């Protein structure tokens, strides 16, 4: 044991020379495009989460956003996901989603943890039907949290998705019950994140908060990230957002590849989560769910 910092004193350096120009003319780095910037920011967030928290997991919903997240994490950690991928399974996803999970869970060498949700009877009966169904997932998540004791959960929400998500922080503290206090959020700026949740609480980490739906598709195409075929048009309909079978509806679309999806997004006035029943039940349903810990 060395009580003393042997490297803090001096070892022949001279750090006080004036700053001089470093870049030889004509040797500039290639400039970064929009997707490069988003990617670099997300990688930074992933590394901060992994470095500053003790036990984290990535919430893998199998959708386009969380697949992009896994891809970004593998970029951050040079090919691997150095923490578990947690799938909180309602048991009601599309068969294509389960196939996708089982295939890429292996191919990407994920430490996959599938956690079940409680039966519907255990959930607040005053919520509208679809919200109640989604609230099941929140309960499942709480159970998984209790089981593993994670202090950080990485979630693929984006600011542009939905109004209440716009108020989110990148590192967002959740109370002991997993709840979110939108009015008492700590300041977050200059890529400095509040990474010390109170005892027993945990953090939600949002590495793609600054991305848009179009960014996700453009990046998926550029990086050739696999997707579930339900996102592409069949018989004039496709899914823009994938949830449980019974509360997710396809939208009218002829987009059968990513380029066509991007073209469609340029034109559309329909919000992304239009096919998600729970967003439209009552005005405060989503806010109530988020306060209770829904993603």
């Amino acid at each position: 044991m060395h009580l003393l910092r042997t490297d803090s004193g001096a070892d022949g350096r001279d750090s006080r020379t004036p700053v001089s120009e470093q870049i030889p003319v004509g040797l500039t780095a290639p400039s970064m495009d929009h997707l490069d910037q988003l990617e670099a920011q997300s990688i930074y967030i992933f590394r901060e989460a992994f470095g500053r928290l003790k036990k984290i997991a990535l919430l893998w919903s199998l959708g386009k956003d969380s697949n992009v997240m896994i891809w970004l994490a593998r970029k951050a950690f040079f090919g691997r996901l150095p923490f578990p991928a947690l799938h909180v399974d309602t048991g009601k996803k599309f068969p294509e989603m389960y196939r996708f999970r089982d295939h890429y869970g292996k191919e990407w060498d994920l430490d996959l943890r599938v956690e079940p949700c409680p039966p519907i009877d255990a959930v607040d009966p005053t919520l509208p039907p679809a919200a109640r169904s989604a609230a099941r997932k929140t309960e499942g998540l709480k159970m998984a949290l209790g089981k593993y004791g994670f202090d950080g959960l990485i979630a693929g929400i984006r600011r542009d998705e939905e109004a209440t998500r716009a108020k989110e922080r990148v590192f967002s503290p959740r109370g002991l019950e997993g709840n979110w206090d939108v009015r008492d959020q700590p300041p977050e700026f200059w890529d400095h994140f509040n990474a010390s949740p109170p005892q027993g609480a945990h953090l939600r980490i949002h590495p793609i908060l600054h991305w848009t739906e179009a960014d996700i598709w453009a990046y998926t195409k550029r990086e050739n990230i696999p997707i579930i075929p339900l996102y592409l048009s069949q018989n004039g309909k496709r899914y823009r957002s994938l949830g449980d079978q019974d509360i997710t509806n396809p939208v009218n679309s002829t987009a059968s590849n990513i380029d066509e999806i991007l073209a469609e997004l340029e034109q559309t006035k329909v919000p992304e989560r239009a096919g998600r029943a729970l967003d439209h039940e009552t005005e405060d349903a989503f806010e109530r769910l988020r306060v209770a810990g829904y993603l």
Partner: protein
Amino acid sequence: MNMIVTPASPATPNGTTRPQVRIVIVGHVDHGKSTLVGRLLHETGSLPDGKLEMLKAVSARRGMPFEWSFLLDALQTERDQGITIDTTQIRFRTNSRDIVLIDAPGHAEFLRNMITGASQADGAVLIIDALEGVRDQTRRHGYLLHLLGVKQVAVVVNKMDRVDFSADRFKEISDEISAHLNGLGVTPTAVIPISARDGDGVAERTDRIGWYKGPTVVEALDQLEPARPLEALALRLPVQAIYKFDDRRIVAGRIESGSLIAGDEIVIMPAGKITKIKTVESWPVTPVAGRQGAGRSVGITLDRELFIERGDIVAHAGSAPRETRRLRARIFWLHDKPLAKGDQLLVRCGPKESRATVVAIEKAVDPGELSSTENKAIGRNHVGEIDISLSSPIAADPYTENPRTGRLVIEVSGRIAGGGLVLSVDAGQRAVPVDIVPVESALRPDERSARYQHNGAVVWLTGLPASGKSTLAKALERRLFTNGGSPILLDGDTLRAGLNNDLGFSAADRSENIRRLAEVATHLARNGHIAIVAAVSPAREDRAAARRIADTAFREIHVATPAEVCEDRDPKGHYKKARAGALASFTGIGNDYEAPQAAELVIDTSTRTVAEAADEIEQMLKTTGVLFDEMVDLAANI
């Protein structure tokens, strides 16, 4: 998250990059900021087709006159009602610049956004109502620009139509605001008469302001100097983590400025170790050839193994950041409890964190009032300048040299409580000549500790005069020496006879006395000796400074003999003289001794023998890892 009105691409058709300039528009809340923004978007052709016509039609249908500020509202609403305005950025183009308007006008958390956003602003537009003239808020915003270091300020005198485009009125306001800004060290780049509503002076010099010969608002924006691109600055790669997932040891982080390429000779700060970049690692393709510039999250491997940790900064040899334990910062405070001198904080500079103490508060300003400049504490939403002493050295740049590594945030109880800009490093300390090259010992610490059976340490005995410090120090010295150790006694009075004979007993001299004692003791401790310091050292702050210097080697012992006993002993006759008024500044009479609150050991010599007290010190040194108990421990320590 950005409100992109025109395509954000900074590239022109011929492939050259247009300079990007970030601006803020400030001024009194009713002086027409939103109107100016709406008009600017229109005049620069930045609005989507049909948008203006649509809004005019909507206004007509509702039977209300069209206002330019509707544009901003409409764009905002349309974008997403939930988008918080503090993340909004509006872009438009002038002839040769891409303008990014950070911080849309007129919302509640103005100060915080102003500082977090505007600290990166290259320029500002300060708006003044021609009828109302310079108001308090106008002056405050001018002062804020000064605080934030925004040097390029264009002033627009708006609503000239309401003063009949009077050149005299314009000159009156122009003189007043110029004098105010000049007083703050800011020279306006232009003062422009405009009517944002009608368009005069925004993009055109109309007849109504025919007497004005200066630039229009668009021309003034076009002349703003962009900040130097981050890539043109010296390399700064703050280390986020070291990964060893496989046989590669990858140093990961984001390039904050400059650029790097495999083969570069680099220096790891603050340790100052020099090595080379072996490879730049990536995924799925690795390694990557070619230069990597500012903004990239990268991973590098080094051509030799050396100790490197999160928070270090990779720089090019020859343009490294300064290493410091002390810096001055201009901060804004967001915490409920005001920031005061002596407060203990956590400072984060990129991924580097360090415990810190507020040594001085040089300025404390309420930007809402600008009246109170009490230098005691910085309240919530106030700004100020502080000197910070850091418990471990960090590598930092003044923000004028590097806007990314020249900023920091302050945490209190694990929560971000403030942020600021690094004004200077080594604040308040003597300049160190550049030709000082400290030489390190050729011996390793473990070689020394194997011989002495102990690690180096600073044992600091503090207490009232005649409390028994010197007696204990000598007993401890004898005991350690007998056991084969290497103790060295540093008595305050003895050093005053030589090294410190230029110092008296003023508070400043006492502090300097303690600092020198601590530096000498720390040097000895670094070289494996146990420095035993016996000094009254009455000021808590001075002892805290000593602890910062010696860092983990510091062991504080409070010799807490009751004051009556000390006065009764009085071996040097000091108490008697002081009582007779013959000894000024004597600690012991009165309440000027500040007892330690968290000493490693407290000893009352009136209730135990010298040998018993020495036993207790020896035991403390064992339990805190200075003295080795057994040979077994020694093995564990090598």
